[in-house]
């Protein structure tokens, strides 16, 4: 009898790390949930380059038709892939994306305030 109970096997669309040191690059692949991260995929469905390029863009390529097909046939999605698909408009925006955006906004606001305050202080000193 196996020591670890057998897991239910299903198809999942997830990211497979294919970069090297300090250069992340992901393939968006269809795999069995129990297979290894960089196992030969059942199907490759796109790529994701998380490093912004010279135009400050993070490039994503998706095979939309096939992803639709796999969604229809009941493939699961990993959380990063859900986020990517949400941003690409294929699915609704992921809840966590909203939260992240909110946090970023708050951070920006705080930064702006902290920048504005010394300026105001300076003004008052001048006057």
């Amino acid at each position, binding site marked *: 009898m196996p020591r670890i109970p057998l897991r239910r096997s299903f198809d999942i669309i997830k990211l497979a790390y294919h970069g090297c040191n300090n250069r992340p690059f992901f393939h968006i692949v269809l795999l069995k949930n129990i297979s290894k991260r960089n196992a030969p995929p059942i199907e490759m469905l796109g790529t994701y380059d998380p490093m912004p390029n010279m135009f400050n863009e993070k490039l994503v390529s998706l095979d939309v038709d096939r992803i*639709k097909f796999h969604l*229809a*046939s*009941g493939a699961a999605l990993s959380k990063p892939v859900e986020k990517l698909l949400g941003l690409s408009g294929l*699915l*609704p925006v*992921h*809840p*966590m994306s909203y*939260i992240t955006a909110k946090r970023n906004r708050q951070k920006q606001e705080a930064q702006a305030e902290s920048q504005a305050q010394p300026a105001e202080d300076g003004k008052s000193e001048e006057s």
Partner: protein
Amino acid sequence: MLCPLRNLIKSSVAHKVLLESSIKQPPLVNSVRFRKPRWLPIAKSKEFYVRKPTPVIPEEAEELYLRYSKYRADVESIRLFLKEQLSQKSVNIMEKQEKDDAADLKLMEEQVKEYNNQVAALRQERQNQEVIAEQKRIEEVMQKQQEERLKRTLQAEKKLEKNKAASFIQPEDLDQAIEIMLDSRSDYNYAITNSGDVILGEYPDQPLDKAPPRTKMSDIS
């Protein structure tokens, strides 16, 4: 997994104690480390390290909860929609294929029908000609046979005519002919040996009155 075990030691006191203790304080579990060997102690710097739980902001948590429930429902509905679309697509493709097949079949049937008609016309013509030819042949054969028969009858009549005088018995010679017939006897009562000699019977070629009387069936019985 636990149920059978639980049933086994359901009544035991030890189990009761164990259960109570586990409720009060969950069992300490050392998670398995994969990088270092198991038997190495925890590093000095990490001896009293307790991971700070990720801070949960209640507002965010609430928002997340609401958003997640909606998000999951939406994704599920999108999945169903895509599934339906896919099946629709396949059905459409199948319908189109069927339609195309039917059209192809119709066209082929028409072509075959046309060809059949063409061939049938040719065959009919040929068969008519054949029937006419056959009739003609039969007529010719009949004609020939009739002629032959006529010829033969004529020949036979001629021959008859020729032989009539020689072989036929005229009414005035009838008595004489009968006499001759009665007189001309041939005796078959003889035997032939291997060497070919003929051994005549007991009474060879005697006149009827000199021959011994015939034995009758009535005499024997």
